[in-house]
């Protein structure tokens, strides 16, 4: 479940930043330290996540979404009511 979610997230990330290589990403380290994402890229990434997983992401939750692991945990929480 979470492995599938992670690979989906990486695919979405690649749509924004095509140079991303899965092997070079550390899931427990801040994503924006590892990938060159400006705020426009980040917003577009979250919009892609929102559309793909059909979850709403209030701006107040941005601070919870730092690493790939964070995103997986957040999405799992949001999807199991």
């Amino acid at each position, binding site marked *: 479940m979470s492995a599938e979610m992670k690979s989906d997230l990486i695919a979405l990330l690649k749509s924004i930043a095509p*140079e991303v290589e899965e092997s070079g990403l550390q899931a427990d380290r801040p994503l924006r330290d590892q990938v060159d994402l*400006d*705020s*426009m890229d980040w917003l*577009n990434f979250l*919009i892609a996540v929102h559309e793909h997983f059909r979850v*709403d992401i*209030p*701006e107040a939750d941005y601070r919870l979404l730092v690493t790939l692991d964070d995103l997986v945990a957040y999405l799992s929480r949001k999807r199991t009511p």
Partner: protein
Amino acid sequence: MIEFRLPSLGSDMDQGKLLEWHVKPGDAVKRGQIVAVVDTSKAAVDVEIWQEGTIAQLLTQPGETIPVGTVMATLLAAGEVASTMPVTPVPPVAPALGPAQAPAMPGAAPSSVLPALRKPASPAARKRARELDVDIDSVTGTGPHGAITIDDVEKFARSAIAPVPVPAMRTVQSAPAVSVAAARHAEMRKAIAAAMSRSKREIPHYYLSEAVLMRRAVDWLKRENETRPLIERVLMGALQLKAVALTLKRFPELNGYWRDGGFQPSTVIHIGVAISIRQGGLIAPALHDVDCLALPELMRSLADLVKRARAGSLRSSEMSDATVTVTNLGEQGVDTVHGVIYPPQVALIGFGRVAARPWAEDGALRVAPVTIASLAADHRVSDGHRGALFLAALREQLQHPEEL
């Protein structure tokens, strides 16, 4: 007969390669319509036409590289009779290269800019050359009168990637793509080098900077975004652009062009937005009439512009008509930008990172979000005093985000 010429697509661009036509002879065109896609050293650009009429002849073939100012097509104006159309078909070697309108880049244009005389080549050979990313001018023709054939193109493509004959087909297709990306990157660096060298050589820059308290702007934006769905959220960059545009209305000497030894103020505010390209390099296409756009609209236009800039589908008017530039390097964590003006513009406004900093206020020291706004301006047009007033006005404008 109306002539449609290749427009200038920015001061660092003096030639372009036609990728495709969006119109054919007999088509009626209207102002602002996209008629062709032209590859500059920076991006593939959708070229708009600003005359109305009916396309009579297309004089440039896809794949051809032509200097700015070359007549690419002829049009019939409304009411003009078709009998003025030449009966003879356009030869495949059509466009005469001279006398192109010289780009206004004294000293900056490399001497080898103009391509050599066109070689004859069949349309099929040109098509094959495009498919294989082969520069047709480099191919030696073996056909009648030295015309380039499909065979010549294919032979050239093979020899270009490996001296060993008969390589596997896979190699033939993938190798040129890599070298094209590298060549494109080199071209872009050359274009940036030309524009920036010209800027530093010709424009006497002066630089000012000002710390701007961003508490109100940050709080206001946060409140606004809380109520907006994800896809309608506004970024600080859009807010800053609007603040710059509104402030510029009161400082016309920072908005316009230095041309022919004098300043031409602009009546409109088209902000060039510096956008970094993922593969390296930089492009600064224009957002039009920023002072007139409501913030959500501005945000959508900005998001669209960034997306198209990175995907390489900008319009010709966006490439050439920015009247001032804004760069935001705060994202990478720098405090201050000392900008290089994009000629023939006369000012560049920069924003650093919005960060929590100590801030003295009412006799007390507090921590508040602060950004450093900077101005690089052309001393031929404005002086430090006016520049300082501009930054002070910009600072004040950012204290009233609700007006933006």
